[in-house]
């Protein structure tokens, strides 16, 4: 008889049953006095997302000098001070290269997200947000939502090599996609299913009708591509199925206003504005169950952010700005690094600003914030800064700084997946291969 405790459930196995939407509602999930219950009596879903900022940090301004909970907030993390208890800071964890060529701003980033460092953009495994989405993303309208705030049409959420989940770069387009056609107000007084939706569903099943025959005609690589096509069709079918049911009531939900047209480019002040609008829309989308998984690219890993009228970008500055001898670091680079944490605060504010159950949306979210390198000047992938923010419905413990002491960064990725219910005992390859859960994070 398998012992039923919280950990075994989080590990994903209860007598062989896969944890997902079908999980019975068990009290042991509610380790904080049942906080993960909405006033409507429904279980609040857990959400997961990543938040990337490019070009690393200034260690002496970011890493707390003490470990554990009693640390003094370092200056660059000061904007996040209000979330001290909901935040776990991870410093000193390395992406282990094992001789793999370090493609600047890419190898560390993708190594962190797949557990496998690669010398190019060709990932060798899906990024872990996709794996988590397969467990917690079922049953929401979008499997995941990808966003990029600095105008760059990029995403570091990969289903496989050459298959990114593309990012929305415009707040207006994001609004249209989520709250435009097909959106159902969860608190609408009445519900009438649209007969056209039923027809659309039958259209899609006609499209997938000859799936088996088609798959038999394909070679392995094309079979996999076709399989992905059918997965995407299935996702669309799910959207339609959701539209045929009355939406679950959501407390405190008000339909967001369509955002005004904004300038989308890499001027840091514009980026801050667009990022904040997108964060707000995303938070609303999470609250009313449009998606449970997201990836926000605040700045690209080779950050193109710039200050108006400057011929430098954040990225070129990391290579060209001299170290200020008095300060001991690059002053303008530090400005961008600090600004990135202000943006992170904006994002967390958006999640914390939505009431949910006895707490906020942030309490039911696990936000994993990270950069692509530690010291951008030398593209170092040792000690890439990482944070876990949010309580994930009580699935993780926060409120401390943990120093990795050159442990593999994949430990953090592994632990997060375990917390989110992915069935994974070990993760990563070579020196990144680990089965060592970060026990401070996941009990």
């Amino acid at each position, binding site marked *: 008889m398998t012992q039923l405790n919280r950990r075994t459930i989080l590990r994903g196995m209860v007598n062989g049953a896969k944890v997902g939407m079908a999980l019975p509602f068990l009290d042991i999930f509610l380790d904080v006095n049942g906080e993960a219950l909405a006033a409507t009596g429904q279980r609040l879903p857990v959400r997961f997302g990543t938040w990337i900022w490019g070009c690393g940090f200034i260690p002496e301004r970011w890493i707390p000098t003490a470990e554990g909970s009693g640390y003094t907030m370092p200056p660059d993390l000061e904007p996040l001070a209000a979330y001290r208890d909901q935040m776990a800071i991870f410093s000193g964890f390395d992406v282990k290269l094992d001789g793999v060529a370090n493609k600047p701003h890419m190898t560390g980033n993708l190594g962190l997200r797949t557990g496998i460092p690669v010398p190019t953009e060709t990932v060798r495994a899906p990024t872990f947000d996709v794996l988590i989405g397969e467990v917690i993303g079922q049953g929401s309208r979008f*499997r995941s939502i990808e966003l990029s705030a600095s105008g760059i049409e990029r995403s570091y959420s990969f289903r*496989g090599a050459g298959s990114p*989940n*593309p990012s929305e770069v415009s707040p207006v387009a994001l609004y249209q996609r989520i709250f435009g056609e097909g959106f159902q107000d969860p608190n609408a007084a009445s519900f009438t299913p649209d007969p056209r939706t039923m027809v659309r569903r039958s*259209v899609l099943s*006609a499209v997938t009708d000859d799936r088996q025959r088609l798959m038999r005609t394909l070679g392995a690589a094309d079979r996999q591509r076709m399989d992905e096509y059918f997965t995407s069709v299935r996702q669309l079918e799910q959207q339609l199925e959701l539209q045929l049911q009355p939406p679950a009531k959501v407390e405190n939900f008000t339909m967001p206003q369509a955002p005004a047209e904004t300038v989308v480019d890499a001027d840091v002040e514009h980026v801050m504005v667009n990022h904040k609008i997108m964060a707000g829309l995303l938070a609303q989308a999470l609250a009313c169950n449009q998606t449970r998984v997201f990836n926000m690219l605040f700045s690209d890993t080779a950050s*193109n952010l710039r200050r108006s009228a*400057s011929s430098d970008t954040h990225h070129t500055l990391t290579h060209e700005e001299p170290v200020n001898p008095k300060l001991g670091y690059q002053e303008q680079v530090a400005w961008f690094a600090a600004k990135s944490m202000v943006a992170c605060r904006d994002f967390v504010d958006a999640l914390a600003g939505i009431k949910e159950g006895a707490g906020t949306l942030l309490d039911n979210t696990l936000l994993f914030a990270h950069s692509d390198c530690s010291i951008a000047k030398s593209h170092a992938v040792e000690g890439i800064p990482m944070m876990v923010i949010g309580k994930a419905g009580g699935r993780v413990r926060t409120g401390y700084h943990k120093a990795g002491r050159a442990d593999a960064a994949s430990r953090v990725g592994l632990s997060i997946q375990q917390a989110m219910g992915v069935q994974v005992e070990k993760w990563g390859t070579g020196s990144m291969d680990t089965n060592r859960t970060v026990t401070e994070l996941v009990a």
Partner: protein
Amino acid sequence: MSVMIARTFKPSTLRRIGLGLCLALAGGIGWAQQGAQPEPAAVVEPKPLGGPLLMRRLTESQYRATIADVFAPDVAIAGRFERGLREDGLIAVGTSHGSMSAFSLEQYDVSARGIAAEVTGEKRRAQFVPCQPKSESTFDKACATRFVTDYGLKLFRRPLSPQERDRFVQVAQAAQAKLGTFHQGLEYALIGMLDSPHFLLRMERAEPDPQQPGTMRLDGWSKAVRLSYFLTNTTPDAELLRAAAHGELHSEQGLARQVDRLLASPRLASSVRAFFWDMFQFDGFNDLFKDPAIYPAYTTAVARDAQEQTLRTVVSLLVTQQGDYRDLFTTRETWLSRPLGILYRVPVATRNGWERGEYPANSARAGILTDVSMLALHSHPGRSSPTLRGKSLREIFLCEKVPDPPANVNFSIVQDAVNRPGSTARLRLAEHNDNPVCAGCHKLTDPIGLTLENFDGAGSFRAKENGAELDLSGSLDGKDFSGATGLGQAMHDNPSVTGCLTEKLYRSAIGRDIAGNEEPFVEYLMGRFEAESFRVPALMRAIALSKTFYAVSPALDQGPQRTAAAAAKKGNRS
């Protein structure tokens, strides 16, 4: 017994250009004729080797052109498109890789619903629906079948199997039952076809080759599709579908008739344009930003028109005038619009639209390398970049791969140079060349890029940088010259330039990389290109008429063949 697959490199005519450590690291291949006496290129096509059956996704421009041709150019496409995957320098190659995200399918469905509503809606159905139902409220199976059969052929680029046809007719019937009207039924059947993988992907099929028993060949429909998207960047037209139906593409004569017909059609220009848009990597304009305080003249209109300018030059030189490809690097003929006039600092009389222009003989500009598009795309938001310009030129036009900078470089010397007053890019980059770790690659990029320093990060002319005089001397593969016009001439004269174009055009046509043993065929094409005075349509003709272009052999991982015959034998549906 193990089978050795020989790689038939011919070191006599092709060689890797030895450009030192950097290129050796990258493994880039440069095409070059060796020595004073180049071997004559093969005049006869080498025995075709055959590649895999392909499953290529329609590009955005192909999707748009296809919808315009199947329905009408003014039928709206409401969905958005995922950015194309670029593999080995070409989105055309990326279409054979990667998969469709949920986002993409969602957006294809948005487009499909918009298109279907317009096509079957009251306003325009007379234009698009080939028959009238007996009544709007009772299902007219014959009319629905005709609609599905007609559009099935056009959208799947082959006739539907009876099972496929019946399936979409059933969709129409079920939709009518639910929603009430006959045309609503057709609307949903059409949505189904537009969402189908058989429309969104070009899925090729093979059949036994009666002329060579024991081997396979592409079926006529698949040949028509390869040919059509290659020469016209759109779906096969009615005449090509007719020829495919009658097996005419399997005969040399029948194929030649279609090839020459398509090469003479105005669609050839769209195809040439789409290929060069891809080769020039103009998708990069989607997230190219310039600082408005530094480059106030650079606007969204400029970004759009700059691409159009270069593509117009390409089309008028290569297609309209049937000119020599190498002249793209030296031509003074160009096109201008009002927004561009501001950046080029020339008056443009035409208020809306385009007029012919010329880079004056005494100016610093000549050839497309001095177009704003090329100069701005490969620069930083607030300054020029000789390195990015040189790198892109090698990768785009010479088919070389310049590696990324090593991760761990000490930039402190560079920092000193950057922050010195009155510094120029040349001074800053000189520091890289004193550093052996950097020098390998910077020697490949900078001597090219520095000759373009007369143009700022937005592509406007400047005589000085930071108040300092500019030294525009540079070199390309051992040839010294000065300034942008010198660079254009050096590119024009560089034998790698035409070889690279040949290789890229062929890779774009077949949607995959070229295997080592296919190089003799590429050599053959290079010879044909040269013999045809480097006229691009003539090169396209040589590819389209070759046996190699259509030859298929199952790839190792390609289990059972996609064959219509095999499916029919097993009694499978569709």
